[in-house]
């Protein structure tokens, strides 16, 4: 297996505030990696470094053999192959559902409007929102918006999908729909890096679970090992709090 993403000694600090203190991480092709950890541990920052929404302070991040920590790297090109889904969806408020999905393919891949729209329809079907093609973004529920956001990310046919707490801002009854879409994606073999608090999802879908605290990876392994036999006391403590509510 080849590395899709290779992170070496990644550090990120905002002034005196050291958020990431040396992260090493390999993500293999078709692998689903779930990052867990307490709030403020740096897991979102780590994810956002992977498509350089945050510029790393030091270390290297190689995606598909391109070192994106090098300022000269064509980051826009790399990003086309990395889909990202945000906690707050971030759908474009000035555009309709279909326009949200077709914007990037039309602008970046030179697709015609018709081509892009045909693809958008298919994607909306896979996320279960075929009837919302012409809807306004503001008329959708949170769960529907997040599924459109996933469709938007998929429209560029990325090899990797990054999910930044995709269900944290949703009402509980919406969470299942979004996780369902993500499970389907995983089954199809999409390489995924997911930051989440959904431990059930991690257990069921993850190939590997990574526990991050205080800017460092403290433990990683198969979901079984992490959840049934945690070694690090901080992980034990964390799981205790999360699982026994």
């Amino acid at each position, binding site marked *: 297996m080849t590395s899709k993403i290779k992170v070496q000694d990644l550090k990120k600090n905002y002034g005196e505030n050291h958020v990431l203190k040396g992260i090493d991480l390999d993500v293999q092709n078709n692998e689903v990696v779930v990052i867990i950890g307490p709030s403020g541990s740096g897991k979102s920052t780590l994810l956002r470094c992977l498509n350089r929404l945050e510029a790393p302070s030091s270390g290297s991040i190689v995606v598909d053999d391109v070192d994106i920590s090098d300022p000269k790297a064509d980051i826009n090109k790399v990003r086309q192959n990395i889909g990202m889904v945000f906690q707050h969806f971030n759908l474009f408020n000035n555009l309709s559902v279909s326009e949200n999905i077709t914007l*990037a393919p039309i602008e970046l891949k030179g697709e015609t409007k018709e081509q892009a729209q045909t693809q958008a329809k298919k994607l909306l079907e896979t996320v279960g929102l075929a009837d919302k093609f012409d809807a306004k973004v503001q008329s959708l529920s949170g769960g529907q918006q997040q599924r459109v956001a996933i469709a938007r990310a998929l429209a560029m046919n990325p090899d990797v999908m990054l999910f930044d707490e995709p269900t944290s801002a949703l009402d509980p009854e919406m969470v299942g729909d979004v996780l369902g879409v993500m499970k389907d994606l995983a089954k199809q073999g999409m390489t995924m890096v997911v930051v989440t608090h959904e431990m059930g999802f991690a257990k069921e879908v993850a190939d590997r679970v990574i526990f991050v605290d205080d800017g460092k990876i403290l433990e990683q392994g198969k979901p079984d090992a992490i959840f049934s036999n945690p070694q690090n006391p901080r992980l034990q403590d964390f799981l205790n709090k999360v699982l026994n509510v």
Partner: protein
Amino acid sequence: MKKWLIRSLGLVACLLGFLGVMLPNHTAQAAEKTYQIGTDVTYPPFEFANDQNKYVGIDIDIMNAVAKEEGFKVNIKPLGFNAAVQALEASQIDGVIAGMTITPARQAKFDFGTPYYKTGVVMAVKKDSNIKGFSQLKGKKVALKTGTAAATYANSIKDKYGFQTVTFDDSNNMYEDVTTGNSVACFEDQPVMQYGVAQGLDLKIVTKPANNGNYGFAVQKGKNKALLAKFNAGFKKIKANGTYDKIVQKYLGTSSTTSSASTKKNPKVADKTFTIGTDVTFPPFEFANDQNQYVGIDIDLLNAIAENQGFKVDVKPLGFNAAVQALDSGQIDGVIAGMSITNERKAKFDFSSPYFQSGVVMAVAKDSKVTKLTQLKGKKVAVKTGTAGADYANSIKAKYGFKTVTFDDSNNMYQDVETGNSVACFEDSPVMRYGIQQGTKLKIVTGPAEKGDYGFAVKKGVNADLLAAFNTGLANLKANGQYDKITAKYLGKDEQSATAKAKPAATQDTENRSFVGLIKQNKGALWDGFKETIWLTIVSIFFATIFGIVVGLLGAAPSKFGKGVSSTLIYIFRGMPLLVLALFIYTGIPSLTGSKIPAFIAGVVTLTLNEGAYTAAFVKGGIEAVDSGQMEAARSLGLPYGKSMRKVILPQGIRIMIPSFINQFIITLKDTSILSIIGLLELTQTGKIIIARNLEGFKVWTIVAFIYLAVITLLTWLSNWVQRRMDA
């Protein structure tokens, strides 16, 4: 409700009581056997204040001579022509002598005494025309002005001499018809015509005055027959004993022929055009007349000297301060603006030989009891910036313990005293006298102090040829009498050609001062000012919007350098007062670079920078108000910064900015008024100039305010419509 009614009744009762006290006063005065005679304020050579502020003139002298002959007393009141006529109708006064022509209309209301002075009609043709008499008019067109005695006269002789007539509504159009050659000649009352020619019309008078009208002394119809009889008897006596001739002789002398100035050109300046700055409003030195042409002692003198020396001038009424600054920065070649020669100014400018001697007088409201400087203690005194009057006032304010309030404009200063905000003002004596002649309700209470000389100025060490030409020309004009004619035209000091002023003064008095009348008279000027304002607004909004968007985008960009440049530009141009910025650009930049900037361009640049800075601030704010997640989502798809901005951020940001844009457009429109400071003839400046002439501040500002409001209303409607469409 009841309280209100009682209060109103109380007020009415007070007013009635007040009138009751006032009215018997008048009857008491009339009973003293001294006749109250009304006259005009200024109608040289018939009545005018001489340099000791005593009323003199043909009318006054005749009245006094008649009274002396017949053994009665007169109290002559210079009320102004209209006021005198109205006072006579209302029996407030017993008679009027005010260069009033005897007309059937007036005869219906008044009884006239023996005609005491004749006026006449003259024919004028283009300067290079060969026409010398009526016989050469056969088959030609002649221009006339409706309703004048001259038109009546021309119509009465047109069949005899076989010419056609074209009728105009105002003198200017009539003159123009002749200068353009459409008509070969025009007919006009002699004093008016002479005034026009002196103003620089390309016309010459070719006939002797034809007898047409008479001035008469008037009393109320059917009343005061005794006074009329006394006047006629006395007038007969003074005509018989030669007093009348002496009086007329004293003021008119032997009529001198209008000799054209010697036309020996000065080779150093010949055919060059100089740009000369002057004040917007400094009557009688410079002001716009009722045809909105710039006239006045300075202007006439400058034009006469230019003609004498063979150079050309482009006179720009920039306002005193702006003119001085423009000269300092080399934007213009010279300044003639009733400027006193001071040592301070000599440091920066070279002055010509003095062309006028002036002094500072103090004036107070007509009903004021203040007559001395010592009465000013603790009071407020109005002065005009940069004048000798202001310097004088400031030099003595500590001694006499008064405070000063500074105005940019004579009229505002007068108004401040009239309304009682200030108790007095200091002004150059000729200016003050002229203002009072024109109806300002002030009186001069001190003799001239700080006598000083007015000089024409050029920038130090520059334009020595122009200065030399001015001095030579001035000497020539003094030698050939033209100088005296010009000053007499406005001040009535010299009796030789004072007639020239006579008729125009009357026209001014009978000007319609109602709102409709004011709009009608000034619609051309107001329209031009309005167009300039709109044009300035549109051009400035265009550039300010571009500038603002560019700087705003720069400020919202992720580059530190861009942000720095943007916030510095906003800081400087939003922080600087518009007035300061305008003066800096108009007068400061040329001082630094040495090249001139036309006022319009300086104005547009000023507004572009200032309004653009505000625009930049809200453009930046509008972009920053869009959720940062929108940009992150766009960038995470691989869209470059520019595309993300265009496709996602700006469409949302503009929606937020629209109300601010509209607001800024309205502010820009209003801010154009500030550009009047650099002499742009926009709506506000137009208002200032009109008021300078007719002193109808309240009415003209009301008209101007309504014009601004009308445009802003339209703009608001338009913007509401745009906003509704955006929200839909």
